[in-house]
Structures are given as structure tokens and as C-alpha cells.
């Protein structure tokens, strides 16, 4: 943060106006109460106050250094008392030296000058306090504004996250195609249609129930993905087969909710929907030390060039892992001639608490 006085043009003007006012009072006191000559009073007032004005600008850095919120109050008071004593001493002696140098031929005034030391020290203390209070007030106002705008920003981020969350839960393409399949099955195979409606309802209920940033046992996530894959099997028929292998000891490990369905959606999109050849999706979930390793592999036809760039679907998952674990190395992909594997390495959480 820069000195608020020097930052803007009107800051300098206001500062000048303030010192003109102080100088005016200074002059009036000298001339009317102490009966000094006009010229003598003007020179005294200007010399002292210009010196203090320059000193005040330098005090800014001292105020910045003595942050009210970071230092204890008595440390702060000692700091300022020391600085005040030093700077007031410097100011009084410097201005007295200068004034004596400028107006040496006036013995009356020189006498007055040495008598006025206590008064100058008191004025200096007053000016010092005014200056630092002004600076602290500026810092306080600016911090307050920052805080307000930061809060607004955070609110916006949270709202965005919530919107994205909703979008993440329900992929419209999947939803409407599934409804279309159901529409067809109601005519050709009502039992199967009913079965699919139930599965779809369970899927939607599960995803609506999950709060953003909550963690669930991986077995629940897998059950949900099985529902998802079974619905997709109705759409794609013999084009889709899948196998999921979840090791017994890993079942209760918690992972961010709704993390896996998008990975399967991505596998369907690139491995199944993009070709009419039968494709297979294979998932393996097991504990490896402090890590839950989840790898999802889909077959794909290497001759097919996707109409959109690949990997977009995984960006969201990467971002969620980043939000959750503050790490960006938990998702990796490997590609061979005929298969595409997405691997998630989930740190096993010690507590059950939400993060």
C-alpha cells in the first residue's frame, strides 16, 4: 500500500490545505498572542510546519510497519512513543536551528525561540498523533473496503460452484436420451421401461442428495455408477459391457461425492458413443498404502478422430480434486493403442468429517 497522500493528486492538495490551516493557526498564535512581527511569525510558522509536513510523509512507512492487527497494543504504544520522542526532538531542534540561522539579527525573537521549546514539543506531539491517527484511519477504511469486495467475490465463487455442481450432477444429454429410451420402452417393453424409470429415479435421488464438498464411502459411489452404467446399457445395448472390481478392504474409504460418475460418462463418450463397435469399460478400485487407487479403462477405436478435443470432461474432476485436496497430481491418464485409462489417486481421509 502506497502513501495515501501521494497516491492521488487531490491527496496532495488536501494535505497542503491541512498544513496551510495549521500554519495559519501557528502564525496567529505567534503574531497575536506572542506579539511577534508579521514577517517573523510567517517565517517561523512556514519553516516549522513544512518540516513537519515532510516528516509526516515519512511517518507513513513507520505506521505501515506497526500494523495494528499484528502487533500487541503495548508494543505499538512503545514503538510510537519512541518514534514520537525521536521525531519531535529532531523536528524541534532542526526547526530551531534553521530559524536561528534564517533570522539571526533579532535578539527578541531568538530569546522567544529558546523559551518556546516546551510549547513546540507539545505542538509536535499533537501533530504526530493527528498524523498517525489519520494514517491508521486510512488503512482501516481501505482494509474494510478490501474485505467487502473479497466477501462479494467469495459469494460469487460459491454461487458459481453451486451452479457447476448442479450441472455436474445432471448431464442433460444423458437425461433426455434416457427419457427417450424410456419413451420407446413404454410401448415395446413396459416392464423394462418401469425398471429404467426406477433406476433413473435412484440415480437422480442420489445425486440430489449429495452436497458439494461432501465425502461418501466409495462403495456408495460405485453403486451409483452401476446404476448409471445399467441405464446406459439400455441405450447402447450390446455396444456396452462393463466390469467393476472393488476390493473388500477399500469399500468404506471415503471419497468426494459424485466424483466417479463423470469419469464413467467420459469413458462412455469416448469409448462407446463414438463407435458402433462393442466397447468395454473396466474399473478397478483398491487400497495402496495411504492412497485409494481408482482406475477406469475404456476401449476405443484409434482410427476415430473425435469431433471435439478430448479431455474436457476430465477438467471438472481435476478441479474438484484440487478444491478437495489442494493437489493437482491426483488424476492421470494413460493411452495405449486400444485403451484409455483414467487413474485417480485419492488420499485416504483420517476423519469422517466434511472438508
Amino acid at each position: 500500500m502506497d502513501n495515501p497522500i501521494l497516491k492521488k493528486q487531490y491527496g496532495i492538495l488536501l494535505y497542503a490545505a491541512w498544513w496551510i490551516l495549521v500554519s495559519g493557526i501557528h502564525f496567529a498564535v505567534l503574531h497575536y498572542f506572542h506579539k511577534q512581527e508579521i514577517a517573523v511569525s510567517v517565517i517561523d510558522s512556514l519553516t516549522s510546519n513544512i518540516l513537519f509536513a515532510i516528516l509526516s510523509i515519512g511517518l507513513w512507512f513507520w505506521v505501515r510497519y506497526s500494523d495494528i492487527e499484528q502487533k500487541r497494543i503495548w508494543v505499538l504504544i512503545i514503538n510510537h512513543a519512541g518514534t514520537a520522542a525521536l521525531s519531535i526532538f529532531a523536528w524541534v531542534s532542526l526547526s530551531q536551528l534553521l530559524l536561528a540561522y534564517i533570522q539571526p539579527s533579532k535578539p527578541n525573537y531568538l530569546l522567544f525561540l529558546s523559551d518556546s521549546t516546551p510549547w513546540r514539543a507539545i505542538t509536535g506531539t499533537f501533530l504526530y498523533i493527528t498524523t498517525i491517527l489519520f494514517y491508521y484511519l486510512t488503512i482501516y477504511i481501505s482494509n474494510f473496503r478490501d474485505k467487502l469486495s473479497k466477501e462479494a467475490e467469495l459469494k460469487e465463487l460459491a454461487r458459481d460452484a453451486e451452479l457447476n455442481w448442479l450441472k455436474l450432477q445432471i448431464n442433460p444429454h444423458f437425461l433426455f436420451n434416457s427419457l427417450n429410451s424410456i419413451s420407446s420402452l413404454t410401448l415395446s417393453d413396459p416392464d423394462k421401461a418401469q425398471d429404467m424409470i426406477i433406476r433413473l429415479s435412484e440415480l437422480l435421488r442420489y445425486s440430489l442428495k449429495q452436497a458439494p464438498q461432501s465425502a461418501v464411502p466409495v462403495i456408495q459411489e460405485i453403486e451409483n455408477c452401476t446404476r448409471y452404467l445399467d441405464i446406459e446399457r439400455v441405450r447402447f445395448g450390446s455396444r456396452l459391457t462393463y466390469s467393476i472390481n472393488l476390493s473388500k478392504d477399500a469399500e468404506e474409504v471415503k471419497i468426494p461425492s459424485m466424483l466417479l460418475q463423470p469419469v464413467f460418462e467420459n469413458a462412455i463418450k469416448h469409448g462407446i458413443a463414438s463407435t458402433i463397435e462393442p466397447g468395454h469399460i473396466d474399473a478397478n478400485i483398491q487400497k495402496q498404502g495411504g492412497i485409494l487407487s481408482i482406475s477406469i479403462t475404456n476401449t476405443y477405436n484409434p482410427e476415430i478422430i473425435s469431433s471435439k478435443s478430448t479431455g474436457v470432461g476430465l477438467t471438472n474432476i481435476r478441479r474438484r480434486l484440487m478444491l478437495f485436496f489442494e493437489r493437482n497430481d491426483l488424476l492421470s491418464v494413460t493411452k495405449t493403442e486400444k485403451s484409455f485409462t483414467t487413474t485417480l489417486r485419492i488420499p485416504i481421509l483420517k476423519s469422517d468429517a466434511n472438508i
Partner: protein
Amino acid sequence: MQTYRIIIVEDEEPARDLLKRYLSASINIEIIGEFADGFEAAKAINSLKPDLVLLDIQLPRLTGFEILEIIEHPAAIIFTTAYDEYALKAFERNAVDYLLKPFSRDRFLQALERAKERMAAKSAPNLETLAESLTPNEPLNRIVVKTGKAIQVVPIEQIEMIEASDDYVSIYTNQERFVKKQTMKYFEERLNPETFIRTHRSYIVNITQIASIELYEKDSYIGILRNGNKVKISTSGYKELKEKLGI
């Protein structure tokens, strides 16, 4: 009475079943083909010349939009799709109808009637404008071209440059040159601007392919590509090129 010949392009079996079921009660129609794959569908539309195509958009190998780009036969088109934002544009142009899944039998038959009127009036849709108006303004990852009877899919990273010639553009890859009826503006808007630069009214070039740039005459330059091909560079194109290449 005329019989209308219909091709169904749909990759999901239940959806195909439903279309057939809806069609089964209609008279004077005949289903001459069903395709689950965009590639096969495009070939079949060109060879079987149907009157009407029921066309899904998300398909294996070629999208519905890409099929429209390469078919020559002016069939009437009814889109059937689950979700997207291009419906309005399709109506503005020449698609007979645009059905959002799931749709009712009545809604389907209404579209079919509309198609029959269109076919009876023999008003051929302008397929190219339809394709162009529908193609989402998204970055391209591939370009579909026709060479003779064959359909080819060209990944964009293989493209070296695109040259305008009248209503067409020539697309150059390392080994081949393809001709496509399309505008320069279309490619300029959809190719990754980090790699492809419109250096001239008639040229778009892949900057990774540029070997050298030479002054041609006052205020105009010639870019020489790795394989020796040359592209014109205008003053503004030169500026942009300099910026992108960091020279």
C-alpha cells in the same frame, strides 16, 4: 400416390425402435435404411437418395452436422436430438423440423406431414446453408471432406494451409489437397487462432509449418512452408504473424 423413401440415422436402438413404431401407422412411406454410424449414413444418403432423413446429431464417427456438409443429395431433413441449442437456427433455415427427445407420436407425425408437404412441393433444401447455420461455433478438431466417392476425416493438426478459390477452399495437408465448399470466414472462426492465422484474404496458414518469410514487393510478403508451398501475406497478416511468432 407417391411413396416417400426414408432413412433413419440413429445410434441408440430404443430410439430407432420408437421412430419405426411411430412410422408404422403411416401410409405411403418406406424405410429404406437404418444407420447407427454417421459415416455409413452419409455414404448411404448419397447412394440411396432418400426423400427424407431422420437425423440424430450426436453419432459415432460423423456428427449430424458433418453429414449435412458432405451429402450431395438434397433430402428433406428432420433432426431428432436430445439436447442442444441449435433448434432455432435450424428452423430459420431449411430443416423441415427439429424434434427434441423425447417427443410424442403426435409431434412426430406433425413433423412428418410437414416433410411430406415439403417433398411434394419438391422444394429442395439448401444443404450447405443448413450445415453452415447449424455447425456450432466451436473450435474444430477435425474436418470432413469428400474425395470422389470416398469420405475422409482430416485431423486439423495435419492441415498446413487453406487457400480460397471462388466458392471453394483448398485444404492442404502434408500429402494431399482437398476441396471443400466452405468460406474462409468459417475456418477463420473455428480454427485455433494460436496455430492458424489468416495471413491474407485468400490464405489461412498453420504457423508451425512456416519455414521462412520473404519480402515480395513493397508492403507484401510471401511465406514459404516446409514443403515449399507458398502463401501470400498482407500487411495486417504480417503484423499478426510477427506477433504470434514473436519476431
